């Protein structure tokens, strides 16, 4: 339970990564929710039976083959613990929940932050679900270096 000393996951604590082929095929969810807590909206939201959880206190387990990246889970996850990843034409795309003003919109430049809040690069917003469409949790898809998909977990707007 060392992640509870730090507040973030180290590489050896992360769930297995979906393969590069899988990421190139279609979008896939990636869940970082290792602790047994009484929570299950991700399970209830998934219509593809991709989330496994026997008891409400079990951490969710994701089946990358069943997941089709539909984003239902990321819309409702109260822990903001889910991201959606995709690699297309050699570029990485990460979709994350975003709940800050000013809201992000297509074309915005953002700083990419890792799990500890350190800057690891820059990216560009290619799509944003407006907050009013999802009870004030916006979703933003950011284009970035595909190698960063497993590192970046937050973004900050670059003020122009």
């Amino acid at each position: 339970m060392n992640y509870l000393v730090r507040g973030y996951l180290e590489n050896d604590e992360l769930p297995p990564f979906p393969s590069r082929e899988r990421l190139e095929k279609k979008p896939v969810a990636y869940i970082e929710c290792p602790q047994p807590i009484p929570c299950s909206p991700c399970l209830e939201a998934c219509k593809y039976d991709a989330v496994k959880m026997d008891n409400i206190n079990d951490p969710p387990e994701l089946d990358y083959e069943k997941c089709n990246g539909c984003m239902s889970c990321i819309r409702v996850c109260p822990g903001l613990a889910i991201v959606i990843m995709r690699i297309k034409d050699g570029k990485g795309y990460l979709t994350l929940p975003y709940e800050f003003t000013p809201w992000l919109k297509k074309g915005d430049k953002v700083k990419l932050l890792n799990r500890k809040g350190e800057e690891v690069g820059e990216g560009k917003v290619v799509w944003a679900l407006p907050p009013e469409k999802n009870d004030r949790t916006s979703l933003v898809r950011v284009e970035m270096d595909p190698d960063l998909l497993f590192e970046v977990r937050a973004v900050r707007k670059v003020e122009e």
Partner: protein
Amino acid sequence: MRLGEHPILEFKKGKEVTIYFNGKPIKAYEGETVASALYAAGVRIFSRSFRFHRPRGFFCAIGKCSACMMEVDGIPNVRTCKVYVRDGMQIRTQTGTPDAEKDRFAALDDIIDRLFPHGAHYKRFTTPRILREFMMKQMRKFTGFGNPPKAVYEGKAEFEEIEADVAVIGGGPGGMSAAIYAARAGAKVVLMDENPFLGGQLVKQTHRFFGSGRHRAGTRGIKIATILEDELKELENVDVRKETKVFGIYDGVVAAVQKDEKLLKVKPKKIVVATGAYERTLIFENNDLPGVYGAGGVQTLMNVYGIKPGDVGLIVGSGNVGLILTYQLMQAGIKVAAIVEAMPRIGGYFVHAAKVRRLGVPIYVNHTVTKAIGKECVEAAEIARLENWQIVEGSQRVIDCDFICVAVGLSPTHELLYQAGCEMKFVPELGGLVPIRNKYGETTVNGLYVAGDVAGIEEATAAIMEGRIAGVDAAIKLGYGGDEAIKIREEVVKDLEEFRSGPFGERIVAGLKKVVVA
């Protein structure tokens, strides 16, 4: 100092009014409490301490700590965080000369104790009598809280008697659920809450809730409050009384005051107490300095009244409350310098910690706050590392911040239960003094139930389930609802058991073993 754009909330300002603070006009908006309007106007010192004239600010913002007491329209000792502004209102601080903000005698702080050590008035200046009386009179001017009203109360003073099957005290998630489930089974219910709004703690929780979808997980706390209120509105057999404070339960009769002008005598057949909890504080040097606030107090200021608590905060405690508050402060555009946690690991959910950690907020485990620094309000904080609960000498360092949020837990608001004669027990796992009860929440006082945080500090989801169980059981015992109600009750009991079956429920379950009798 008022918040503008906010990702989750929209602040609707009421009509602009003018209130007078120690004679100075201050702009305020209808719907705001006096304390929040003063805070927005930059007032930080609300009172002075009884003896040493130390400045005091607000702490809890929900009427539980009395740090905000002032004289309002001639009435002394009014908790200004619980009264709402009215045009022309006259507010005066009641400690300090000429007022609490610029207390001339505060300069004497250091020598008061030398001149008048504790108990001095029993020993010094006692003879002759004339000197004693003179000195007493002078000392009284410096100490105490307020002066008796100069005029006789001239407002309305009405009386109403209400008969009901079930009286529910407290309109948070626990109380609302109890009222809904008792009423759905067919009982006539009266629900009372001291606030002008329902929802209890939920009204400041802008984040999405945990739990299962069936218990509205994934939905924001503020929205859960409105959903429950809508469900209540659909029920004709629930009489909702807001701004109604229950002050006693006498032989099954509930006594309350509605809007400060009407005395209610409620005669129910069953009572559900769902009064929630209040915040604990922590002992450290200068912890009474304005700028040291309860986490819930800051949430109230920020999320209910749209007022900025400060520019940079330090959070003490990494339970869910501390972690969520950190995120909420950042959403309001306020910086959080750090979170300190005395335990060797984060107390709340990992996912809540990860949310703020990835935005760059450091979380220092094995650390505590040792001192609030500042003259009239917080200007910085000193923190230190702990080893085996001892401060490591030399590890102290100063963190720049202008407010400190104490998020070290809650204690049940149990006073009414005590007064009603419930058998109580101190159970640390449940947060303090809680009543002995059966699995449906009925206490040792026949027909008196508990639900929610007052029965043990837990979560809104648990409060909702406990409320449902208490409400429906009260109705069943009165002959309502038939087999259907019994089925519902047993289902909720099962859900609640499952909810508590994980590691986060272990503590609760251990605590419940000590107070729940068959």
